[in-house]
């Protein structure tokens, strides 16, 4: 057993190294990875580099255009909104809310989805089928509708976004893991392990899981980008983060009144969301081609 394990570790390392090599050969994916690294750095450094507090109003500088505009000022790099708040600082603080929140949600959903998905995947027969149907039903409710249902029950707010997006996301993980585990379970090498006398926990952890990680990683990157878009959409619809929160979607909702007068109050948070989601998708795409080389 012990010997097996060491042998196994070795194989995994080379596997990882190969994936990494394929991944960094893709320039777009690398750009995405750098962008994400910057975002995480920004999340940590926000308090030190943001020039203003996200809620500090300045009635002397209302709707100032961004600094590259002829009426702009360097003091307010991205300009100000209609309460004279510095958009640059708000975007920086928003990273924590929109991007950080999406990470929290995805990992919470992953945790729960992993447990349920693994258990249901290991089960067979009617029980498995009933569980499968249950999650199909939950999955058929679009995330936004699920969020509306949650808001109807507990009211809008940033914490409720956690529940709304999370509840909508758990079934996706369950389904992905359930299916992956289920498929692996049919394969010959699992049967071989069973014949060797391994119990189901051992089979799951040492035999099946190493082959499911790939799918899980792809699923997680997809879920993060979906979560960001959902959080922002809820903020935009005023069902998520509430004013004066600098959550990006909520910032766009707050800027909506000034669409004609000061389009940058909407464009800048919009571009921030676009860049974040795009870099995550680039990384996801790169990972996918590295993990499943044949398909791409």
């Amino acid at each position, binding site marked *: 057993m012990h010997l097996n394990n060491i042998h196994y570790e070795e194989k995994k390392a080379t596997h990882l190294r190969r994936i990494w090599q394929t991944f960094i050969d893709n320039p777009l994916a690398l750009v995405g990875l750098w962008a994400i690294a910057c975002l995480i750095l920004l999340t940590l450094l926000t308090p030190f580099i943001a020039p203003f507090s996200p*809620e500090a*109003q300045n*009635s002397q500088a*209302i*709707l100032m255009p961004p600094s590259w505009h002829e009426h702009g000022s360097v003091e307010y790099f991205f300009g100000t909104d*209609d*309460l*004279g708040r510095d958009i640059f600082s708000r975007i920086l603080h928003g990273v924590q809310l929109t991007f950080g929140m999406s990470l929290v949600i995805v990992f919470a959903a992953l945790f729960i989805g992993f447990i349920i998905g693994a258990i249901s995947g290991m089960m067979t027969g009617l029980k498995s089928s009933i569980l499968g149907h249950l999650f199909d039903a939950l999955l058929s409710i679009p995330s936004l509708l699920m969020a509306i249902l949650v808001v109807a029950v507990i009211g809008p707010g940033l914490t409720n976004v956690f529940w709304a997006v999370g509840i909508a996301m758990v079934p996706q993980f369950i389904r992905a893991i359930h299916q992956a585990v289920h498929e692996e379970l049919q394969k010959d090498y699992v049967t071989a392990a069973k014949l060797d006398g391994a119990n189901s926990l051992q089979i799951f952890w040492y035999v099946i899981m190493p082959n499911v990680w790939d799918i899980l990683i792809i699923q997680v990157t997809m879920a993060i980008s979906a979560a960001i878009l959902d959080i922002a959409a809820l903020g935009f619809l005023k069902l998520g983060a*509430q*004013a*004066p929160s600098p959550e990006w979607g909520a910032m766009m909702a707050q800027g*909506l*009144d*000034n*669409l*004609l*007068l000061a389009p940058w109050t909407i464009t800048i948070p919009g571009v921030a969301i676009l860049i974040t989601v795009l870099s995550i998708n680039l990384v996801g795409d790169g990972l996918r081609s590295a993990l499943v080389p044949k398909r791409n």
Partner: protein
Amino acid sequence: MLSSGCSEPQLPSGLVYCSEGNPESFNPQQVTSGTTIDATSHQLYNRLIDYDPETKQFAPQLATQWSISEDGLSYKFELRQHVTFHNSHLFTPTRFFNADDVLFSFNRIIDPNNAYHHVGRNGYPYFQSINFSQLISSIEKVNEFEVIFHLNHKDASFMFNLATDFAVILSKEYADNLLLAGTPEDIDYFAIGTGPFKLHQYVKNDHIRYHRHTSYWGPKVDTQQLVFDITPNSTSRFTKLITGDCNVSALPRPAELSVITTQPNIRVVKNPGLNVAFWAFNTQKPPFNDLRVRQALAHAINKKKILSVVYNNSAVEASGVLPPASWAYSKHFDNNEYDPQKAKALLKKAHVTDLSIDIWAMPVARTYNPNAIKMAELIQEDLANIGVKANIISYDWSVFTQKLAKTDYDSVLIGWNADNNDPDNFFTPILSCSALASKNNYSRWCNIGFDHILAKAREQTEQFKRQPYFQAAEAMISNQVPIVPIAHAQKVVLKDKSITNLHVRPYGGISFAQTTQTSTKDKQ
């Protein structure tokens, strides 16, 4: 008006008004909201009398003449003849308008035994707030076309109140028919009136369609079709005006007016409004029952900043409730100037620490307050400066008003649009004890002395005698701070240049009866 020989298919004739929200009902007797008034009073209905803001005289509508008895307790009205009510899929009138309709319309409000008194869930908030049922002892039908209102006491505001947008005339025949059919509540939804337009279709959240009332008694109506395009978002209203989906657009945001200069087809119609935006404290709830706390909060807010951010400096800073456009206005000293230090000291004196309050802010734009939520955010920041934490609470308008009536809120940002030119309209409906019962008094402040001053003012008929009382009332508000008056806004609508004869009155709802449209294609 379209030339029939035209081969190119054209847009049907009519006028589209981008309005800001759904009406709560189609009967203005039951509401105080401006949105509902706009959609009903001047379009569907008539009142007995009108008040002409130009001549400052009462003008005939369904009443042609009137006289007041020596003692000021009886008002006699001669009614207009040959006035037809609308017809609809539910109702075809068999008779002209007469005294029975007048009696029904007002008895519904004042008589709890009237079969229709309890129809509708809102009651009659305006009439309750001015204590109308206590004022009227009876309404007498002299003959088919003559009625007399008998009052219990003298009231200089009575005629003004009959001229408000709320005092509309309904059809008794229609009411009787509906009662027989067992669907009395239809009277406020499938409305029948005598006004220049009749209700054709209402699709919630989408539009209200009116057709011209072809046998309207009044001056000829040009507009064949009137559509209220319900567009809650102010930017959408503005873009619809630019793209030509609307001809007239309600409640532009003051900041948008600066964009209009780039749009050659859009015109601005404005008028100094008779209105006031204010911040009301729930004076029945601690700590707002403490005068010092109210004063402290009043001293904390920077009205100048609000004026520049929310109103784009298009409004007048309010020192009292009455706007400069009112005849009873006079400049007076405001006790509650912006002074955060004083505010902190007052809070300290009141032994209030770590105060956290809720500010309810209207979700919709109103003439007096184009963006209450933004205003609340500014106040939030001001309060943070004196160490008070504020939460902003907002719901969709209909839920907002309902919840407000049921909840023990802390404070609310709201305001008042005058319904007539009578200064009393700024005090009795929103701050008196009777307004408390009708839930129109958002400060929940009931002061016998204050009511007494207002009663004195109503007993006088000459302006110069009434003015001192209104000044005394103003001083009392400034001292007691049940509300903090913030601004008096301009009344603005936008229209495209083909629309003429659209007048914005300083008070009350909008009217499209006289509006005309020059087709942009008719060049010769």
